[in-house]
């Protein structure tokens, strides 16, 4: 992919109708860790995998799962600082909306506003697009549960299950295979851990860490980031299962 002069700014389209800066941003997302969100029978699960960059790094410092409001969760990939900046923006929007209209921000409105924000970064000179995909999950009294994904281009859709990052294709296939909508959140969590680990197969020699959060009726539809100890145990178990499966295959 070469831009021939059209790839330095995103203020102009190339003759083929492409914006290269946006495509490069998508590239940054595609090569980063897998994130996914799945709608279940009684809630939503968000998850991400990540490689521990340095042995000297304090465990749990590299966070990718955030709360935006008490009932809205998000997970980001790509350039995580970009993602964080979007999350902070989301928190501001949520507080402002509540001050203005006296009700909690509906997840659909929040997603739409963040998508607009992302889109603004794809049309001006001098600023670059966000190099991040963000998955939003939330519950509100307008529409109930909602799962949205925003991509660097500002594209924003609602999903039953979505994935982004390096293991996107594999994760999407796996999500489509399993009928998560008939499954409770508790049943789905181990499966999702497995999907996330499979999605980073080629990196499995390095130390891997998962981050998972849920919104379900058992948490009172509040966003809850799962305990690190619990997730680490889950990871070990999932790794074992994957190895067993591979042994059987061989």
């Amino acid at each position, binding site marked *: 992919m070469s831009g021939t002069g059209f790839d330095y700014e995103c203020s102009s389209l190339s003759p083929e109708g492409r914006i290269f800066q946006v495509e490069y941003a998508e590239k940054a997302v595609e090569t980063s860790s897998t994130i996914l969100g799945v709608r279940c029978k009684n809630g939503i699960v968000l998850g991400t995998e990540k490689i521990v960059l340095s042995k000297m790094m304090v465990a749990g410092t590299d966070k990718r799962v955030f709360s935006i409001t008490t009932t809205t969760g998000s997970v980001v990939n790509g350039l995580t600082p970009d993602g964080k900046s979007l999350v902070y923006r989301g928190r501001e929007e949520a507080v402002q909306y509540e*001050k*203005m*209209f*006296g*009700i909690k921000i*509906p997840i*659909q*409105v929040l997603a*739409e506003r963040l998508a607009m924000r992302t889109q603004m970064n794809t049309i001006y000179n001098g600023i670059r697009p966000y190099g991040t995909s963000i998955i939003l999950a939330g519950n509100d*009294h*307008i529409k109930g549960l909602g799962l949205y994904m925003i991509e660097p281009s500002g594209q924003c859709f609602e999903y039953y299950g979505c994935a982004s990052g390096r293991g996107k294709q594999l994760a999407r296939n796996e999500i489509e295979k399993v009928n998560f909508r008939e499954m409770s959140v508790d049943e789905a969590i181990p499966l999702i851990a497995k999907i996330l680990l499979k999605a980073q197969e080629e990196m499995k020699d390095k130390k891997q860490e998962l981050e998972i959060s849920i919104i379900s009726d058992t948490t009172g539809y509040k966003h809850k980031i799962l305990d690190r100890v619990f997730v680490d145990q889950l990871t070990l178990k999932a790794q074992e299962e994957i190895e067993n499966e591979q042994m059987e295959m061989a």
Partner: protein
Amino acid sequence: MSIADLQNEIIPEVNTHSVQTDGTTIIAVKYDGGILLGADGRSANNMYVGNKVSDKLEPIHQRIYCQRSGTSSHTSTIARYVRYYMEIQANELGNLPPVESAAQVMREIIYSNKNSLSASMICSGWDPYKGYQIYQVNSSGYFEQGNWALSGSGGTFIWGYIDANYRENMTRAECKEFIKSCIALACYRDSSSGGCIRLLDITQDRVERDYVQYDDFKIK
């Protein structure tokens, strides 16, 4: 522009010396399958009845209405602001706005300007999320939700009547009679209420107005 506003323009000398107030009896009651709003028709400037048939039922959105009591200019301005906010919200939501939101916006306006405003309002209606709701914000910004709400100077005279006669899940016809007698009784004793009764029926499917003339007021 409401009739009251027109009247102020026609008789300017009345308005230069006094503020038009909705002395008012306003009442909102939830019945089985809807909400009925009722208001009297009198707006007075001190002793002078500025408007005999004013409309104190103000639309906020398709299924949200508010009722105004207090200084007319204040309350109609607040209603206009709330209407503006709800329109923005409905557009963004792509659906009917929540009644709670309209009431909260109203609370915010009244609470943060309580020393300069004289306004006590009821906000009620239907939305697809929580169904039929009635909220009330009084002049100092105290926010309440209930199955019925009562406000205005005339309300003072019929609290006991309502405590004794209100039942949950009345039929529409019963509720209408109840509200009519409430307002008729209030007009009987309150010098700031009178003129006519305006009724408004909000259901999921439609909004319907009704009018009762003074001759048809029943006290007993």
